[in-house]
């Protein structure tokens, strides 16, 4: 009897049942409706998304954690995938994005309410990923790892294509960081060229040229065997 009581008194307490901060989930439906209502122009989907994001950022400035959640929901997977194109593994990418989110929330008053919020999020992620990456070799290693997996996956296709893809991977690894980022943003995560330009920190025209140059290198790599 006494022992069981001791056990009761000294047993580790049940998992911490802290309530979720201010009922984030419950407020979402109404919040999104309100924000949509604020946005009048619904002609262009992409621009519409931009306006929703900006409306959300205005609420974030007022300290609304629910708006922050809603904003991140729309971009989280893309941000993790983008970070993974730098740091390799999914876990490392999640760590990068977690740090970015923490910093964004701490410095939420600095989030822009003009232009593309998405470009801002990707910029923050790229900067932090580059900080985390001490050596470009890590990228190379992650790509190598991937190409091994991929080569197993694509065993079905014909040999010439497989060779070409392998060469393509080898060249992607050697591309300058800016070109690789630009390709990952444009074709990997589907950003607009103007947004790519904002993330990489150059003009839209220069971004177009950057992409063209990168693609030209890749094309040459695919064809090199036969020339």
């Amino acid at each position, binding site marked *: *009897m006494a022992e069981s009581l001791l056990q009761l008194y*000294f047993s580790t307490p049940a998992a911490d049942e802290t309530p979720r901060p201010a009922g984030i989930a419950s407020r979402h439906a109404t919040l999104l409706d309100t924000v949509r209502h604020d946005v009048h122009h619904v002609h262009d989907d992409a621009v519409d998304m931009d306006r929703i994001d900006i409306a959300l950022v205005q609420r974030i400035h007022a300290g609304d954690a629910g708006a922050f959640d809603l904003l991140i929901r729309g971009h989280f*997977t893309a941000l993790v995938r983008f970070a993974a194109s730098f740091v390799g593994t999914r876990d490392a990418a999640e760590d990068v994005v977690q740090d970015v989110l923490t910093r964004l929330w*701490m410095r939420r008053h600095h989030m822009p309410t003009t232009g593309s919020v998405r470009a801002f999020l990707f910029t923050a992620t790229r900067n932090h990923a580059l900080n985390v990456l001490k050596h470009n070799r890590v990228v190379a290693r992650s790509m190598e790892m991937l190409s091994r997996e991929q080569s197993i996956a694509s065993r079905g296709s014909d040999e010439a294509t497989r060779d070409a893809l392998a060469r*393509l991977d080898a060249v992607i690894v050697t591309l300058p960081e800016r070109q690789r980022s630009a390709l990952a943003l444009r074709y990997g995560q589907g950003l607009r060229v103007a947004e790519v330009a904002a993330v990489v920190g150059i003009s839209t025209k220069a971004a177009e040229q950057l992409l063209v140059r990168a693609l030209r290198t*890749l*094309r*040459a790599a695919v064809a090199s065997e036969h020339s």
Partner: protein
Amino acid sequence: MFPGCCTGMDDRDIIHHLTNRLGRSDIPPYADAEVARFVERAVQSGVVLGRWTLPRGARTPWWESVRSVRRVLATTALTMLVVTIGRTLFQQHPAETIVQQYHTAPGRRLTVQLAGGSTMILGPATSVEVTSSAIAVTGEAYFAVVPHPEHPFVVHTANTVVRVLGTRFSVRQYVDEAQSRVAVDAGRVGLRLRGAHADTAAQTVVSARMCAQISDSGVTVMSGTAAGTYTDWTRGMLVFNKVPLREVVAELTRTYGADIRIVDTTLANRRMRIDVAVSEESLSQVLDVIGDVANAHYVRDGHVYVVTPGRAPLPTHHGIPVRQPFPQLEQSYGR
């Protein structure tokens, strides 16, 4: 002519490949609930830091603190209730009367002489309850036991029962730890899991210079140098060997009675090898060393220390960098 035609690949194939590969489509999309977890973590650590990084208007509103006060009051009331019930029930069994209770605050240690000549050292942030038949430990405690064959010496943690004759050993299980640890300096002790019956359960015997980790899944016994370091805290030493900074900081928090936080997950997971002489080094000195090793610095506000990656910014006076004095030559020549 487009040169890629010979291999049957055109621009569309290349871009398709880029989408899959650089776009990392191998990572599956995240569900809303998962994202919410990440955001929550970000927002919570943001609120913690908000006290000094944010402008006045953005601080935590007063009603938030009232809510946490209410939670503390509720927990205290519940604990008192349990204690009262426990007391009344114990009083019906005079053999189990609580003889004495001891508590230490974070940053404190306490040495206690027990009846029968045995000695007990309480680590920081520890509660010990001595009854006539057993000693219950929440936290960390070291025992030097004088043998009395007719009265076996019994120590409980949340999941373990330790039975001893004559020995010196350390017991540890804090409230937030799932497993308990028993490190033996001299002699031998017998262990069993808390729920198991005394007679039927297989006892694990731990000998001198060995250490046992007890979790719900079973007992792991280690020997060698690692075991010795677990009783060093009684001599005012903390020894960390490839321990994640997260855990180092948890230990320092208890030992120095300060509140230390790490902002960065990469930094928190970094493994450290560091020895701390608690009585000789101040917490700032220890954190300076950690900063040197891990390329980080800390900011202090009262008893709250925040460890941030990167070197400390140069000191400024009204925004103008202050010139550093000459490097201390004496120190750099090892004097």
